[in-house]
């Protein structure tokens, strides 16, 4: 499958057409032959006779960004994770279920609040262990179905997110 990248807010795709005798790539339908390229993720490479400096950086949000400096100007290219692109609406991604039976310790976010992926929404306790249950994705919390102190069974639904908008 082609590699998708975003530059200045626009999406592009690159596909490998051929590897030997030369690398040939298809960039949005335009064909390029690249006789020489270096295998380092950081450093200089020669492309089309120009020296290009490339460095890949992973931002804290988990997005993979590549900084490319060419002709004395720096550009930021976002490498789109295909799994993120194709993973569609899951029930799993709209709901928080109890991984085991237990009781609610505390609720950290309330209905209508924005949450980010990985942010703790509920703390539960089970078998004398406390576990943080996190939001499966960025979004708005639709409701929390339990109050502190209440108990629940394994797999019971504890909280829901509003369905994500179509991007």
């Amino acid at each position, binding site marked *: 499958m082609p*590699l998708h*990248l975003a*530059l*200045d807010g626009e999406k*592009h795709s*690159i596909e*490998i*057409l*051929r*590897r*030997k*005798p030369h*690398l*040939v*790539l298809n*960039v*949005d339908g*335009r064909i*390029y032959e*690249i006789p020489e*390229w270096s*295998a380092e*993720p*950081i*450093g200089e*490479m020669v*492309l*089309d006779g*120009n020296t*290009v*400096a*490339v*460095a*890949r*950086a992973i*931002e804290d949000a988990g997005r*993979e960004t*590549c*900084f*490319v*400096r*060419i*002709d*004395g*100007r*720096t*550009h*930021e*290219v976002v*490498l789109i994770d295909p799994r993120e692109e194709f993973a569609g609406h899951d029930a799993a991604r709209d709901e928080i279920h109890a991984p085991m039976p237990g009781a609610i310790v505390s609720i950290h976010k309330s209905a209508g609040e924005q949450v980010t992926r990985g942010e703790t929404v509920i703390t539960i306790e089970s078998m004398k262990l406390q576990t943080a249950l996190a939001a499966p994705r960025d979004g708005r919390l639709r409701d929390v179905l339990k109050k502190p102190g209440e108990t629940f069974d394994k797999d019971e639904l504890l909280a829901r997110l509003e369905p994500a908008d179509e991007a």
Partner: protein
Amino acid sequence: MSGSEKPKPLFGKVLVANRGEIAVRVMRTLRAMNIASVAIYHRVERNAVHARFADEAHEIRGETPVAAHLDADAIIAIARSCGADAIHPGYGFLSENAAFARKVAAAGLSFIGPDADTIELMGDKISARNFAAAHGVPVAPSVQAQDDIDAFITSASAIGFPLLIKAAAGGGGKGMSAVRDASELRERARIAAGEAQRYFGDGRIYAEVYVERPRHIEVQVLGDGKGGAIHLLERECSIQRRFQKIIEEAPSAPLPEATRGAICEAAVRLAAAARYKNAGTVEFILGADGRFFFLEMNTRLQVEHPVTEMICGIDLVRTQIEIAAGLGLPLSQSEARANGHAIECRLCAEDPDSGFLPATGSIRLLRAPAGEHVRFENALEEGQRVTADFDPMLAKLVVWGKDRGEATGRMIAALRQLTILGLRTNIDYLVRVLETPAFRDGALHTGFVAEHADALAPAPVEARLRDRILIAAALGQRTFRDAITLVEEPYASMAGWRN
């Protein structure tokens, strides 16, 4: 070997109470002068370049890294315990803290800078203004806020609008706001006083004339502490954003000779009157009508001191140390000659396309520009994390040229050669500023960046270049590279064959 011995160093050991590029720069001169250097660092910067560059380094503690660098007592204690005989405060942090300077002296150490009294005098913007006015240095009409807020409003309005509200204890561009007309004045004054109290611990404010399209001209002075003072020409720092300088040059952009002379002379007069000791900078604003007003005096080494060094052929840190050691001024006014033109750009971790919001990240790739007449003042290395703990300035690039045109061209080339990748920086933005016709023509003023905002937006990328960028980015990605290299023969050569 002949009989001459190496001269005894002026100090045995100097603690540099600072960090980053200025700490490294000061230590470079210390090393050249055969003086041992001591660095201080907070835990978050324990692997920093400046800590490793020094001959010895000690950890400082604090609730925040900045707080640690402001802990005067701890720093002095370290200096004493490691046998340092002097402290160089750099710029920022404790460099203009009179109490610190006093404590250093009380501890029996030399403070490489002016006397505490001078720091105190010039640190209070209102007392500095009054002192300047008393010694014939032009000051902008201003009114200090007293308890009677209505009286303040009336006299401030008399200055005329627009005017500036400033914090007495502020400085370095902080604690200022503009007021366009009378209706805003009361509210702005109230807010400004509150902020001044919060940020500087001193709620006094004053209102000052607001000069339209002002140029920021400052003069490097040296004083011997006995009333003798010279100037080393002026610098122009009119290219600013959010009141912070980003491009400085020496000498200034084209300026009538008479005006230049008057400004420098006024600066020297002030320094001499204050019996200023060591290096300092007197800052002025210059209006289009040729009137100039005293802004403030910075009783320390400035960030942009290298441009003066390059045109005067002098090492200002060396001069500071010599004066602190009791030597006099290194040269007389008539000996102070300038040659050529120098420009400095401050390289910051910020996003010029998003209101200059500070950026964070890691330095993944660093390639310094090379060449004669190019100074890359930095304490950077690949792999370094850039966080929000400290000021967003990463480094300084300083170049010299035989004239302003050559210096500008050389700076543009050096910026384009410089590579710092892994986080957003203002490098490309600085190139765009230098390339504007207005800059080349010297049509500078402190509103330059705002005035040319549209022209300074990045140009769109043309299609062929964009494809190369995308290819470079793709080839930088591990999975993509593997997809290319991990297909063996004969499949690599058969490519997309179908039967």
